[in-house]
């Protein structure tokens, strides 16, 4: 299970990379593995405001449709339009080419509600039992 140590994580298996007041988010390796082949991503619209842990996108796989939640509150500044034609990028490269959205972070203090890589690793291990 790939868990990069420079990211923050949610219990719903989203990740966010915080750089200044911008965050890039996507879903984790655990999530893409559990979903299986991703067939469609509803890409969040630019300028939309999102709240922490509220729905930011919908992902469909062959198996099911799942809601994706925003790790932090903010405004969407960019979405990954590559996913429209190639949603399998989420399976192939969930932390890099399969990113979902960039947001302008509203309140960095919300970071306290997220896990670092060590805590997330433990959280995922706990799910397996």
């Amino acid at each position, binding site marked *: 299970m790939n868990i990069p140590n420079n990211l923050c994580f949610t219990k719903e298996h989203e990740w966010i990379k915080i750089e200044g007041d911008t965050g890039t988010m996507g879903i984790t390796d655990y999530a893409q593995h559990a979903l*299986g*082949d991703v*067939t*469609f991503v509803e890409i969040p619209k630019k300028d939309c405001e999102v709240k922490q842990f509220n729905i930011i996108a919908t992902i*469909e*796989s*062959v*198996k*099911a*449709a799942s809601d994706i939640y925003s790790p932090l509150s903010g405004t969407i500044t960019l979405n990954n339009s590559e996913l429209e034609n190639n*949603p399998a990028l989420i*399976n192939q490269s969930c932390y890099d080419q399969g990113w979902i959205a960039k947001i302008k972070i509203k309140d960095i203090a919300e970071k306290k509600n997220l896990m670092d890589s060590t805590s997330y690793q433990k959280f995922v291990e706990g799910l397996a039992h």
Partner: protein
Amino acid sequence: MDTTTALKNTPLSAFHESLGAQMAPFAGWNMPIQYEGIINETLATRKSVCAFDICHMGEFLIKGHYKKSGLDRIISAPLENLAIGACRYSSILNAEGGIIDDLIVYRKGLQEWMIVINAATIEKDKAHFLKNLTPETHFEDPSCALGKIDLQGPLSRSVLETFIPTAKNLKYFTFCETDVCNEKNIVSRTGYTGELGFEIYASDSHIQTVWKKLLENKLVKPAGLGARDVLRLEMGYSLYGQDIDETITPLEAGLEKFIDFEKDFIGKDALLKQKKQGLKRQRFFFKSLSRRSPRHLHKIYLKNREIGLVTSGTFSPHLECGIGMGFASQALEIGENISFGDERIKIEAVVCEKPFVKKTSIKN
């Protein structure tokens, strides 16, 4: 209740786990859902050949005259004209015409039959057969000790004939009892994928040998129930418990061609009555206009009016769009625009014919 402890393993479960398959409960069994991915396994079955562990399904053995035993009344398809060595898709119905199960009847001899049924329905099917067969009819349920592997795909014949030469001559929906890795087993040219394919029956103790033998051939990939579900949906085949059940009749489900109205069978009166009164709902098939997929119990809308429910839906890797089937309270025309979804979203779709995937190797 912890349901995981009650899950049954097939004789091949350990193999699947060692190959890294994702396992999940299905009909009370611990089954492989996928190995490397549902889409790859689906594509491989249509292009090449895949092996599926289908040991969970049930089998009954019956000995008796087709009519005097009561079997002809239980099975809604014709039995009298079924040749020895041939098999036929059919259903068993309740008095109201509802489908208790769908199945395949194998005629092993003039008065010898094998019935292959769904895993989740074994006990209720058994009760139905025992209630309606005459007491002198021989009935046996070897389900717990009999396994099955499906080998499906355009290359399945060339794989099988390397160690089961008789498989080469099997015609569509026929079977033989032949030597399979030094045991006499049933091999039929049947399947649930729409491709050229075979089902191999063997005792639980022998099925591992057959599985290993198949996978020795580098052409053969193991595939899970996820791919099997996509493959059957691309052909428009019903899944019992999801698309059909005891509240749905074969007429509503579009399965009338499998019913023999010339003979007497359980549920016939109800079906004739339903024919006369007209159908309150009908099966239909549809394609999404996008990559979004319909899901079980999504609602169906015609011009924003709710007219039915989705029973099965998925993403078709061959058409690269969502596909589904469901019931509508009114007749729909091919090409008619509908939408599916829930309170949050409605997705555009178009009514179409089945099968969704037209050119396959099934009759090769």
